[in-house]
């Protein structure tokens, strides 16, 4: 194991191999993230990665930057604190759907409403993977999970619509197979000022695919290849994901809006005058 991979300088090598299952798309998304960090030209000493709990929550532990592994669902409040305390930092929240949307759902919508300067990367595998495949708020209708053996009868969240409606300035969705487009999208999101949100649809061979008899990770990747429709600027409202239906991917929102820190400094300057 003396060979060096070109991405090893951004990985904590002593923790590799990671715990993700064979066929999981998380590793590919981290490769894209590392490539996007290189492309974005950011000062890596000022990039912070924050993760919550779950399979995706382990990304912070594998990336060799200033990274924080926080409590369940509280990655965004933690990142908000970082972004407000030191506005020079580029804060990236890298977490899963169970962490960001289920337990931390309220934090997500309020961080988007305030337009806090951070990039949120949400890897969506449609259920709680690490705890054994329980149904979550992103599980598609009629999909099976450990706690919904007859199928899920709850309507899932449409994450891009949720983020766009809450006020995110950059919203995109890709699958783990759209490697080049995902890298480009991550680069754009990292360079964007304000709250940017990227959803990554990832295969989960152990929990989601096995329970629904969808084959292994490669079969799910082939499904994404055949069934994703790239539609930039589409209405996020119409980008619902059903069980094994077509997936609309692309860049949905890219607008300019002053972020929270701009409002804060301008507002304070009006009230108490310029600070030295």
């Amino acid at each position: 194991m003396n060979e060096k991979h070109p991405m090893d300088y951004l990985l904590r090598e002593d923790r590799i191999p990671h715990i993700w299952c064979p066929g999981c798309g998380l590793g590919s998304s981290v490769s894209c993230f590392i490539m996007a960090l290189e492309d974005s030209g950011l000062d890596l000493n000022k990039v912070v990665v924050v993760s919550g709990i779950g399979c995706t929550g382990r990304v912070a532990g594998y990336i060799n930057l200033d990274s924080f592994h926080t409590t369940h669902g509280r990655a965004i409040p933690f990142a908000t604190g970082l972004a407000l305390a030191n506005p020079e930092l580029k804060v990236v929240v890298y977490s899963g759907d169970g962490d960001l949307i289920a337990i931390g759902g309220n934090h997500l919508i309020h961080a988007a409403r305030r337009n806090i300067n951070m990039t949120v990367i949400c890897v969506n595998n449609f259920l709680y993977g690490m705890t054994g495949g329980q149904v979550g708020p992103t599980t598609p209708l009629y999909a099976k999970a450990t706690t919904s053996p007859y199928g899920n009868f709850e309507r899932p969240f449409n994450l891009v619509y949720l983020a766009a409606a809450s006020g995110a300035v950059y919203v995109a969705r890709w699958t783990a197979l759209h490697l080049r487009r995902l890298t480009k999208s991550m680069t754009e999101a990292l360079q964007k000022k304000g709250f940017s949100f990227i959803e990554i649809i990832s295969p989960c061979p152990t929990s989601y695919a096995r329970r629904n008899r969808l084959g292994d990770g490669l079969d799910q990747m082939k499904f994404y290849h055949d069934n994703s429709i790239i539609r930039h600027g589409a209405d996020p409202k119409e980008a619902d994901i059903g069980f094994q239906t077509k997936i609309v991917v692309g860049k949905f929102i890219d607008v300019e809006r002053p972020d929270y820190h701009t409002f804060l400094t301008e507002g304070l300057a009006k009230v108490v005058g310029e600070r030295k």
Partner: protein
Amino acid sequence: MLLSSLGEKKMKYWRKPLDADKVKVPHGKVRIIKDRCKGCGFCVEYCPRDVLELTDEFNIKGYHFPHAKNEEACVNCGLCELVCPEFAIYNIPAEELEEKDDQG
């Protein structure tokens, strides 16, 4: 199939580009850290030049790892490096071969 025709050393064009004889095709070598591999098969499936295939051998963890079956077809695109979830495969550029394409 189309993929098998791409795997050949010389690329076939449905319409020959005007500057086809001037364009240098980049050439790469594949490096595999075999003990990191978990045998998911993403690189084998999505290599655009069909360079890789899984071996029958086992690595330290008991997975079949890929090897380059026709490395001369590699164009150093780096897709395997990007798709690999285990950070186990990468390309290095080989000296560029001057390929004269005479196929129309």
